[in-house]
């Protein structure tokens, strides 16, 4: 039976123009229902990160309408403390650059920042301990975030948002530059979050991990339009489409000792054809 609840996000014909006049997004429309695991795919500069900023309520569309939980998500609506607090509790972004996301002097204070601002300060300490434990970073509690490795930073960034128990995670290239163990730990965390009914919107280029993170994908074309909105399986099965949108590549390859160069495709399931 279909739910009468409004979708988490409803975007209608949204556009975004950067201050220098460049068009970032152009007539983008989609819904994100509760529990969805949506990937935003597209070449560099296609507007994925911009779209995530709009969904985070950190930037606002130049044209069109964007709603969150059935309410308009605008600069004006976020000036209302009640709406802003409720929205920030429910929707949490994880930025691509962990150095930007982590601004406190210690890991413990970093993770405590959200609960102290948005939660019950008397419960902040126990929530922080739980979040650190959940991401296996308790031992880093007193370390300075900027002195951590890339994988550790990303785990702390996740702990810092998961501690708020949000309903929606907005992730920008979450697996970039991580070693396999860190990728595994973050995928497990995302799986736990999703299994608990959480909604995920993830901007990524990482086709080999796409199925692990999402069941639906929106592909943005290089002019910032929606080129396709379909299941991950459908999109991955359409190689010509992926190549035409700069999501799969063909390049020269050297075989063994032979000087043998030819076009070569990389598959997205870890196999090489």
């Amino acid at each position, binding site marked *: 039976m279909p739910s009468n609840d409004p979708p988490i996000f409803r975007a209608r014909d949204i556009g975004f123009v950067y201050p220098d006049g460049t068009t970032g997004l152009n007539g983008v429309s989609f819904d994100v229902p509760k529990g969805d695991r949506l990937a935003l795919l597209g070449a560099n500069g296609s507007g994925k990160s911009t779209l995530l*900023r709009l969904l*985070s*309520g*950190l930037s606002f569309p130049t044209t069109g309408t964007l709603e969150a939980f059935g309410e308009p998500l605008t600069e004006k609506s976020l000036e209302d*403390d009640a709406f*802003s*607090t409720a929205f*920030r*509790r429910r929707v*949490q*972004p994880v*930025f691509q*650059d962990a*150095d*930007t*996301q982590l*601004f*406190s*002097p*210690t890991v*413990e*204070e970093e993770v*405590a*920042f*959200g609960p*102290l*601002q*948005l939660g019950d*300060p008397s419960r*902040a*300490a126990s929530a*922080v301990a739980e979040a650190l434990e959940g991401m296996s970073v308790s031992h880093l509690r*007193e*370390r*300075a975030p*900027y*002195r951590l490795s890339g994988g550790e930073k990303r785990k702390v960034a996740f702990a*810092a*948002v998961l501690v*708020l128990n949000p309903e929606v995670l907005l992730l920008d290239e979450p697996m970039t530059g991580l070693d396999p163990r860190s990728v595994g730990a973050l995928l497990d965390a995302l799986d736990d979050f999703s299994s608990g009914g959480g909604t995920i919107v993830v901007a990524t280029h990482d086709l080999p991990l796409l199925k692990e993170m999402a069941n639906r994908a929106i592909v943005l074309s290089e002019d910032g339009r929606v080129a396709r909105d379909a299941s991950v399986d459908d999109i991955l099965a359409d190689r010509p489409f992926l190549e035409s949108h700069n999501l799969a590549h063909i390049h020269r390859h050297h075989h063994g000792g032979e000087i043998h160069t030819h076009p070569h495709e990389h598959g997205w399931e870890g196999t090489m054809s």
Partner: protein
Amino acid sequence: MASRYRKALDEFGAMLGVGWDTERSARLAGWLQNRDPRCKAVAALALLITVALVRSPATLAVLYAFCLFVTATSRLSVTRLMRRAWIAAAVFTGLIALPAVLNVFTPGPTAVQLPFGWAVTTTGLTTAARLLLRALTSLHVLWLVVYTTPWNRVLAALGSLGAPAPAVVTLGITHRYAFLLTRMAGEMMASRSARTVGHIDGARNRAQITNAAGTLLLHSHHSASAVHGAMIARGFTGRFRSLEPFRATWRDVVLVLLALALSFAAWSIDRHAF
């Protein structure tokens, strides 16, 4: 040349006295570490005002000695803090203090005669000593607070004492990015070294450094906007909060009274005796 710049940048980063180093020292079981941050801020403010008001180098030296005594009771390295304070004071006030000893800038009785009619005057020496001791003591007072208090509690204390939110936010973001920017500047310098062979002439060198400074400035603007966005996303509305609630005890009241008494005594003695 480039390695000299890199070393200078590293030293500057260390001299800023922020980061993990201060977080670690703030968690030591020293006398000042156990004091309420708000009381420390009030005590520091009283001392800073006094340092600005008193004129005698002797009085300033007594206040500086008091700071060193408190440093020792707070399990901080007196020599390390002194060294950092002297470097910073030499950099920021040396340029003014050094010429001030000469008769061309500060006339007065001659202390040391120099060639070409120049001389070091006793009045000049007193002026230079005053400037230097003011800078040293002020820096030391500030560092006593920063080195004995977790940074977020410093910001929360300033907020709870009524400091304007934009000033506290600016301080917070500056603290966060001072280290990142010095590190980035060091990396830019290393990248330049990796692509440089031989000697770069002075004009080109200056042009490259100016370009790098411009890039850093733009990057710092971008980074500050991004980090502010991250703070907003986690519900920041202009007020820092601390994980541990503030709790003032009679010892904290003693600290404030002690600072006020010392400030008043120093000011009175300085006014009447010198």
